[in-house]
């Protein structure tokens, strides 16, 4: 569908990831200098020039597995380590948060405002580091250049593409359940009240005209909701009030991050067998992934003592328990390179992934389809 979706998907998911990591680093009392290094390293990697160049090229959306691989890499761009269970949970939270934001956006164009909210927060994380700040500013300019001229219909196509990516995901997020924006069945609450989107009128008026254009009658009807007039429009510039709260940081030390895995398998079991990958041609995706990952340079920890592990759960036992009890259909199946028919792409990717698998704690994901990459791609 829209070939302009990937940058928005990546930046918004990346933004959510940073909110969650920031909260967990504080919650685990990681020393301030180490925490700052992690945030800076990840943000530097996210906004790496070569990487962004690849990202902004017109292309179809990646499959969930491919994108998860990119974020695994990103999360390990610094001295921080995450176990598989924590990485799974992190990704669940990131994706459900952005799904929520996309669904609740009053207009499709507001997804850009949500992206700017994430960008504004990222800018704040690195405000003391000029070198990274300039990378972030450059990305603002690229976003403005690419998206501000798009029509409403083109934004809706982007939104529809994102919604296909998020189709059938109903993982329950504790903070959403508490705020009553998500139901216990994992579906988000869509209120029939509140301000209408910018450019829309409150429903209720029927106007009828004569052939000469004069208004003949006005009638009101009951709109079945409780709407009020639109708020002012948010700013689409580098600086400005975005007006919407979607995309701002909803976590704080007192509002911890948790997910519930139970109760979701009933919903997802029925639907996971369908191939929802927009581009299932394995070789094609492998090439794209290799180019994209080529831009993500991993920092090797100079001294293994400075490395540390972050846990997305309250205790190590909980983390272990989560790994064992995660329903099969919700496993992301991170791509492992073993054998592919395309030697060049494999070599390049293996080289990049080699650094990744060396320094990580990653245990190979439990996939019943075997380790062969193409087989895994075919199973998408």
């Amino acid at each position, binding site marked *: 569908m829209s070939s302009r979706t990937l940058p928005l998907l990546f930046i918004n998911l990346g933004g959510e990831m940073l909110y969650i990591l920031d909260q967990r680093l504080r919650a685990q009392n990681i020393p301030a200098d180490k925490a700052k290094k992690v945030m800076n390293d990840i943000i530097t990697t996210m906004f790496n020039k070569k990487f962004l160049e690849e990202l902004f090229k017109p292309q179809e959306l990646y499959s969930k597995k491919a994108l998860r691989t990119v974020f695994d890499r990103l999360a390990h761009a610094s001295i921080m380590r995450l176990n598989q269970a924590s990485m799974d949970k992190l990704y669940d939270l990131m994706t459900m948060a952005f799904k929520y934001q996309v669904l609740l956006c009053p207009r499709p164009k507001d997804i850009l405002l949500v992206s700017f909210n994430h960008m504004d927060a990222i800018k704040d994380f690195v405000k003391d580091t000029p070198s990274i700040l300039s990378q972030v500013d450059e990305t603002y300019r690229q976003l403005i250049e690419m998206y501000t001229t798009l029509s409403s219909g083109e934004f*809706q196509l982007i939104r529809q593409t994102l919604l*296909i990516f998020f189709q*059938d995901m109903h993982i329950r997020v504790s903070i959403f359940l508490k705020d009553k924006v998500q139901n216990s069945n994992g579906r988000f609450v869509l209120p*029939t009240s509140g301000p209408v989107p910018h450019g*829309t*009128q409150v429903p209720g008026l029927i*106007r009828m005209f004569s052939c000469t*254009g004069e208004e003949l009658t006005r*009638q009101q009807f009951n709109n079945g909701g409780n709407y009020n007039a639109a708020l002012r429009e948010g700013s689409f510039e580098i600086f400005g009030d975005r007006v919407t709260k979607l995309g701002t940081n909803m976590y704080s030390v007192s509002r911890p991050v948790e997910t519930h895995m139970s109760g979701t398998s009933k919903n997802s079991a029925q639907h996971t067998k369908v191939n929802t990958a927009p581009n299932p041609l394995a070789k094609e995706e492998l090439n794209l992934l290799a180019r994209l990952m080529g831009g993500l340079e991993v920092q090797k920890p100079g001294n293994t003592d400075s490395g540390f592990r972050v846990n997305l759960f309250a205790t190590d036992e909980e983390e272990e328990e989560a790994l064992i009890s995660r329903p099969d259909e919700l496993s992301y199946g991170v791509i492992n390179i073993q054998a592919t028919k395309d030697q060049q792409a494999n070599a390049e990717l293996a080289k990049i992934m080699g650094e990744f698998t060396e320094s990580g704690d990653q245990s190979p994901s439990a996939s019943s389809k075997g380790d062969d990459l193409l087989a895994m791609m075919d199973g998408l």
Partner: protein
Amino acid sequence: MYHKEKSIQIKNSASALYNNLSVLRIAPRRLTYFTVVHANVVNMVSASWDGLNYSHRQLQSKEPNVATSTSLIMQAAFCVLPSRDLLVVTSQKGIQMYESDGSIMVYWHALDTPETPTEQAVFARGISAVWENYICVGVSSGAILVFDVPSKGSNITLSEVLEEHKESITDMASECSGSQECIANLVTADDEGSLCVWKSGEEFQLLNKIPGFDMSCSSVKLWKGTVVAGYGTGQIRLYEAVTGILHAEVNAHARWIYSLDIAPFSGLLLSAAEDSLVRVWHLTMTPETNSVEVAHLHNECVTDTQICGAKFCDGDGYAFAVTGYDLSEIIRYVQS
């Protein structure tokens, strides 16, 4: 006025696409077919009128004889012609036409897809059967492909390409009143809200172009010479097709409209949007004064659901069906 009936379960959830529900009533066999698009699959359900038998079928979007090629589907719609009914499926790669039960693909038309993706997306969207033997399909470039359909067999040919729209086609509709008097028998809509009114024939004739107001028209119908158009702003506008005179303007929904339908025998209008609401209206034409009246009749709220398809199940509007994003059922309502 309406009450909810038992839903029909479908194999996958509906994707967020405009006009994502198509209904075909087969009176002689006391069956109704429904189609709902999920990513690259069309879910077809055949439901018997007594509510006892349901059978399912899934169609994938793919080029014939190419094993791995699939693409996302934009729309699936039944096309009813005097001699036959076909199911047309439009995707990023091309247009497929099946027999109405989905059993055999009778025609495949490939779109010109570039080697590497371009900024402008490529896809086909907007489907309508047009009197007497044409099926029209819209393309993301704004072009409209006119296919000539023989009364049987697979010798379907591309008869004409209409290039009038500058933005991607969103939807199109043919005159559904059954009246032969109407001069215009096709209306096409695009992403900037422009509406083109056509007369079919060996060469289609453009009768009128109604300019948009920079807001996508996502769903359009044509009834008794009146265009009914639904927009991304939630507004519905009624125009006289041939002259472009604005008859009525309704602030109908609080979010983007995804589907409109008309029950031709009764003049009932159905509108559905991302705001979770389905509304039923009544249209009255008064030829003497050349006026059209719109009256609001009924609301149904599908809680916490962004609706993507809504269609009447019969020509009187006695029943209608609804689909929503992430919902794996077709919800049905029947007049009380």
